[in-house]
């Protein structure tokens, strides 16, 4: 199965945890993850953010769970970059 190297997510989240803690929590999922967060819009109870995660092997389910745990929801997956995995050895 192809390995995901980069992913761009449109996320809606409550004001707490803040951008810094939110980014740190996602980055702590894997030492190889690099996370970039940009706040797009702030409403009374929520804020829309764009999260870009880069890594050697991004595990989407784990990221989705972490975002849900912090009270956020993924609106859409707007960009994905993947590489084909090497063929399995037949020996």
């Amino acid at each position, binding site marked *: 199965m192809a390995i995901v190297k980069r992913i761009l997510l449109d996320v*809606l*989240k*409550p004001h*707490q*945890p803040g951008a810094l803690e939110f980014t740190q929590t996602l980055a702590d999922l894997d030492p190889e993850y690099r996370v970039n967060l940009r706040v797009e819009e702030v*409403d*009374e*109870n*929520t804020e829309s953010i764009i999260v870009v995660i880069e890594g050697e092997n991004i595990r989407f389910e784990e990221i989705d769970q972490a975002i*849900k*745990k*912090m*009270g*956020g*929801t993924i609106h859409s997956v707007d960009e994905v970059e993947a590489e084909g995995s090497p063929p399995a050895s037949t020996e």
Partner: protein
Amino acid sequence: MSLIQHIRSLWKLSQAGDIARRYFVTNGFDGALTMLGILLGFYTGGAVPLIVVISACLGAAIALGVSGFTSALLSETEERKKELKELEESLVAPLEESDYGKASQIMPWVIAAVNGLSPFLISLFVILPLWLESWGFMLPFEMDPFDAAIGFAFLAILFLGIFLGRISGTFWLWSGLRAVLIGLGTAGIIFLIR
């Protein structure tokens, strides 16, 4: 993540610290002033056995503790439910499994514990000299246990005033003395009614 770290994270997320601090002061003040009132009532009413005074104060302390715990638990649970529902509507997603959902279930109990324990423990502190006397301990300088307990009540009131001053950033001595003035005012009213 350890349990303590998890509770700390939920504590921060739900912003329960401000509410708990407010409850600690308001109900602690209730406890100290109630004890002061009961003690002054007995003091002005004439000689009564020490055990009667302790029983009355302890009864009031337990009632204050239970009242503080249950009232905060009921009101905070409903408040948190309302907040969670509003947030779920804004996010158009369920939050029961999120940290918000857990905080809305756990934090009312923590806040209720602060609200109940604050008047209860402060009341126990105020009647400490009476306990010591009833257990046969000699108070220093041969103090009268009643006088000492009234002094402890003012000490608790002063501490709460100083605590408030530290929070608001005002001069601690002024806020402490202001709280003591309220205690003196209460004592004045009790003496006047007598």
